[in-house]
């Protein structure tokens, strides 16, 4: 099992002819991801790393039977690209692009109401089901198949956490970077229920950050509905108080947002709090180690 992406994922890359799109297409192909098509308006008929390029998402879907897309297009054009993917009813849209205007994402979320698509990102590293499918920009070789899911707001900190898990002999079911922007396609609360229902996932590592309310919302859900063990690290415990302007942000967050407050509500919800970023692998191992290894946690590492 695993969630959202696996061997059956047939991926499009929107913005495949751009520098980042082309580079990561190659890396995803190296990971054996089925990249079946690319989209760049006006570049239809060409190829990138042997992948056929189409002018529109709809055309690419019709021709290739794609069921997911990775969006690499520049921020100015991201909104139109995402809308095209929603209209083509692609079940999974992963937006890697950084710098998408917040109101564009508000408009996207409105369009997603009742739509057939789920969106991950923007401004995220993407997601990976180790050994099966990589949709994004994370280094593939640090991952290993297994039973621990990783949900994170960060990029490189997630890689570090995954690396620690792999070193500790704990493989991963699916690792998802949800992105660092104010308005996201999917937050922790949208993904935790999928992991709770996934037979392969035995535990969840949640990596949060100061600011926003993603961790607080997650804590409420964990308390009410998540029975699998959750381990949480929140970055920014030592961050200085934000220099800010006006009061609306503080009012809307209800005074929440510091790492200490986030850790307190997550602990209260039953999550195990990891204090040091260097102790993520060790802590999960100490708590579960043997408990899940017989349940199918593959410990052999993929060679780089």
């Amino acid at each position: 099992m695993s969630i959202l992406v696996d061997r059956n994922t047939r991926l499009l890359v929107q913005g495949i002819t751009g520098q980042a799109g082309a580079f990561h297409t190659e890396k995803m192909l190296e990971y054996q991801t089925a990249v079946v098509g690319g989209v760049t308006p006006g570049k239809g008929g060409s190829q990138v790393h042997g992948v056929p390029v189409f002018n529109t998402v709809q055309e690419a879907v019709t021709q290739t039977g794609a069921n997911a897309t990775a969006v690499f297009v520049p921020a100015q054009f991201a909104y139109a690209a995402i809308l095209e993917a929603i209209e083509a009813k692609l079940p999974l849209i992963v937006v890697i692009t950084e710098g998408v205007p917040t109101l564009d994402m508000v408009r996207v979320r409105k369009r997603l109401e009742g739509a057939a698509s789920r969106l991950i990102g923007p401004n995220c590293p993407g997601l990976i089901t180790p050994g099966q499918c990589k949709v994004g920009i994370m280094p593939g070789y640090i991952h290993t198949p297994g039973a621990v899911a990783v949900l994170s707001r960060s990029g490189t900190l997630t890689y570090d956490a995954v690396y620690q898990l792999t070193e500790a002999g704990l493989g991963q079911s699916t690792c998802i970077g949800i992105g660092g922007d104010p308005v996201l396609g999917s937050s922790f609360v949208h993904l935790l229920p999928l992991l709770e229902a996934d037979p392969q996932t035995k535990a969840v590592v949640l990596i949060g950050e100061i600011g926003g309310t993603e961790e607080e919302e997650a804590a409420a859900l964990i308390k009410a509905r998540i029975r699998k063990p959750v381990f949480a690290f929140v970055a920014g415990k030592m961050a200085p108080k934000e220099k800010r302007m006006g009061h609306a942000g503080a009012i809307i967050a209800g005074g929440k947002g510091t790492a200490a407050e986030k850790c307190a509500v997550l602990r209260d919800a039953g999550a195990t709090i990891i204090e040091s970023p260097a102790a993520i692998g060790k802590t999960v191992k100490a708590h579960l180690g043997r408990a899940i290894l017989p349940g199918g946690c593959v410990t052999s590492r993929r060679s780089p």
Partner: protein
Amino acid sequence: MKLHEYQAKQLLTSVGIPIPRGAIAKTPPEAAKAYDELKRQCRGGTGFVCNVKAQLHAGGRGKAGGVLVAASAEEAAAQAATLLGRRLVTKQTGPEGLPVSAVLLDERLAVQCELYLALTIDRFHAQPVLLASRRGGVDIEEVAAAEPSAIIREPVDIAAGVPEATLSRIADTFRCAGEQAVVCGEIVRALWKLAESHDASLVELNPLVITEEDQLAALDAKVTLDDNALFRHPELAAMRDESQEHPLELKAGRIGISYVGLEGTIGCLVNGAGLAMATNDIIKLSGGEPANFLDVGGGANVEQVTNAFAIILADARVKAVLVNIFGGIMRCDWIAQGLLNATQQLEVKVPIVVRLQGTNVEEGRRLLTQAKRLNVISVDELAAAARRVVELTRAV
């Protein structure tokens, strides 16, 4: 991007939200002229009194002495002279304060009551949201904490705008009726129009007042624009006041490095914001104090590493540097070579503890060890690297 009050008020005027009459001045002589002009507009007599308000990117300025009054052109010039060029410290600026860029002279209105009206983005629900309270003014956050029900929240539909029902609920909250309720509704709709058409992530009117003549007016306004959307608003991007930003942070930002100066002695060079925050955390857990937060970007190339070193070392308090790089797409051996080049080129004297992890890490560590630089110390594990750098700052 933050705007000054006077810039925010220009935007309010453009969408029809009433504000007091006012004029901006950047020098004392301009302030004297602005006083005379304002007096004429307000048909004021001898001894006409106006506010002289410091313009800076932070709230809390009233309590910090940033709002003065003047009753003559000479006095306006004198008050402007005391404020302009000075750094004002308020509870929202941090201890170093912010320089006063300009002064806004504005009409003093006789006020019946102070209201609060704001529009921001509710991240979780992915919706714009209006916040309104009858109890506006300087203590709105205390009101929010002690009596949350005193502030109503009304979502705005990104496609359909502000519904009628919302307008009446806000008017009721403000106890506006009849013609006043109509004006109130126009202000609420204009606020949304302003936010939508300018990609503002915050528009706050505090206070919005009802004058003794029963007129509504925004006495103060704060606008924050979405940096990601500035590409479609060049006229707004031109309003940026760089004097309100920390010089090193500004310099770093221009080359794509995210830097925030802190109080400690350990410089940090990290790729990725989350990992950078986590690095600051582990330094503190190990008993040290970070001198900065620095994110060279997820990709981290050699040129950026060199640039980042230059920024870190511009802070004379830095006694040692911790480099924490997770090489993903970028290989650790390239990073190691870049580090060696950068530290040589910049003649770095302070000790540098380097923790590399990720792609080609063995080769990267080998390069660092082989270089036999006395001040470059490669440590494999993050917790050990943090302990080492803390020890080094103690030894100095």
